[in-house]
């Protein structure tokens, strides 16, 4: 019972293919407008791609390849959708909201309510059963929405930034809840938060401009990001280019010396990755190798923990507030970012 998808939609320059095991959860990460919601809409049947095919085991969700024209309606797919807003039906009690899925599947009123009570209890919302959605807080409503989605017994659960609309107190509670209920379940979760990916997902997919730019186990992607977006999530600097014997050469001709992990072969596409804490900031050119030195213009200074994060030329450096004051850093200044070659990892892109 594996889920397979490949779909293309030219109007949104969207082209994605992915697979998902029976109890696997993947996190979809990516900038706004990358096509994350398009992906969920296509899977759930709310949006029709130009071509492609999706199956869950033997069940064909759609098959628009070649001259086939199979399109299963959203209600027959078994792909429950949980969005940013809880979207509980305002005219039904919490219990009847959760009972909606079982009722639609043909269960009797009593059976459906029993199922609903079970799932409400499962999300610690048993005491809210008789409340109307208007009487629930955002976090409570979202918990009921989780129960409603699970009560429909979906083959694939789709979560579209379920924590995004919650306040900082409600989000951790829901995240713990999702970790528990998603453990043995197939799910795709769209998120902006690296913590969601770490806690909830077995695997992450980075989507940029409608294409998958990076894919792999969450830990690997965060430790060895290959896309600028994933590097940003992991809090790392990333420069891409062509692998050389000593490091890489970027498209703009910058030479980055670094430490080869042994997998990169000179001539292939590669990346140089280093943490902002490894970057030193100087006002003048430093001499003495083995060091990388980049002449950059400061775009932003911002607090980052107990450090100051200096952003310049697409790179970040973390320095102490004292150092920043000593150097008199302001946006618009040109400085040198200096990184020891031993702090730079080089691996294939």
């Amino acid at each position, binding site marked *: 019972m594996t889920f397979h998808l490949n779909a293309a939609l030219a109007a949104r320059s969207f082209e994605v293919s992915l697979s998902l095991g029976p109890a696997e959860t993947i996190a979809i990460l990516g900038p706004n407008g990358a096509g994350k919601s398009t992906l969920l809409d296509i899977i759930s049947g709310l949006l029709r791609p130009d071509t492609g095919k999706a199956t869950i085991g033997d069940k064909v969700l759609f098959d628009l390849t070649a001259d086939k024209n199979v399109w299963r309606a959203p209600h027959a797919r078994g792909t*429950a959708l949980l969005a940013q807003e809880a979207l509980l039906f305002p005219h039904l009690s919490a219990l009847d909201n959760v009972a909606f899925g079982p009722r639609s599947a043909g269960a009797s009123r009593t059976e459906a309510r029993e199922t609903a009570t079970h799932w409400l209890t499962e999300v610690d919302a048993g005491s809210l059963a008789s409340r109307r959605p208007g009487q629930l807080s955002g976090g409570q409503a979202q918990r009921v929405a989780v129960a*409603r989605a699970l009560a429909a017994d979906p083959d694939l659960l789709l979560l579209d930034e379920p924590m995004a609309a919650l306040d900082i107190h409600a989000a951790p509670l829901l995240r713990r809840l999702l970790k528990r209920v998603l453990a043995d379940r197939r799910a795709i979760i769209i998120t902006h938060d690296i913590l969601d990916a770490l806690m909830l997902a077995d695997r992450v997919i980075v989507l940029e401009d409608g294409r998958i730019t990076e894919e792999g186990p969450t830990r690997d992607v965060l430790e060895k990001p290959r896309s600028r977006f994933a590097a940003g999530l992991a809090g790392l600097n990333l420069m891409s280019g062509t692998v050389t014997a000593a490091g890489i050469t970027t498209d703009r001709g910058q030479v980055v010396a670094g430490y080869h992990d042994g997998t990169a072969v000179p001539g292939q596409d590669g990346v140089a990755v280093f943490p902002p804490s490894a970057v030193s900031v100087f006002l003048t050119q430093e001499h003495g190798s083995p060091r990388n030195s980049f002449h950059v213009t400061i775009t932003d200074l911002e607090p980052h923990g107990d450090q100051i994060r200096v952003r310049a030329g697409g790179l970040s450096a973390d320095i102490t507030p004292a150092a920043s004051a000593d150097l008199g850093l302001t946006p618009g200044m040109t400085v040198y970012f200096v990184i020891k070659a031993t702090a730079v990892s080089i691996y294939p892109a």
Partner: protein
Amino acid sequence: MNRRSGTGYTGIPPWIYAIAAAGALFVLLPLVAMVAKVNWPQFIPLITSEASLTALGLSLRTSAASTVSCIVLGVPLALVLARSPFPGQRLLRAFVLLPLVLPPVVGGIALLYTFGRQGLLGRNLELAGIRIAFSSTAVILAQTFVALPFLVVSLEGALRTAGNKYEAVAATLGAHPTTVLRRVTIPLVLPGLASGAVLSFARSLGEFGATLTFAGSLQGVTRTLPLEIYLQRETDADAAVALSLVLVAVAVAVVGLSHRRPHTSTAPQGAPQ
């Protein structure tokens, strides 16, 4: 929510109130003039005469029937107009709304040439032994024709405001489109549907021109209350005024009902407690 506290800034220039008052008077004054003209000692006998009661009964029955037809025909029309874009949609909307601006007598003539004995459909119905023109059915058709746009406009607005997010969620939970319509869409737009139905009922109750043209004025069969009032006006002005007051009272009651919304069921979610 009716907020009647006068503490907030309204931004309305003072002279607007004077014109607004004149406008209100323009509507109220004729009603007052009519009430002043009522022959109160004879009021009860006048409105309980056989002709009056027959006309009132016919009016209420036909208006109720035409409201039901408006719901049966209008709900699907509003759904199609609000939810599924198709070529010619704007044209269809324009035609559905046409009776709003069409003189009712023109509607009556159009209906006559459709369902009359020599009409487009009437000819075939006649062969099948069904005669519609100048029957109570004709009254209901005339009322439905003029009242349908009220329901469609009101419901289409409610559907557009509600959006279809809830429907999408319901579908992914496994609900068949018919189930979604019955358990989600209709309950969500119920206030809009109710006020549309009430407006349709009120419009049916007041229908005159199309009824007279298409259904005629046979006592007990097609002579509704407005027709009875028009007829009485020639012979017995007191009766006409008394019956007019009855119609005003029914209309006020109906419109009052439609504005007394129970609770806004489409309140935003996640409101803090």
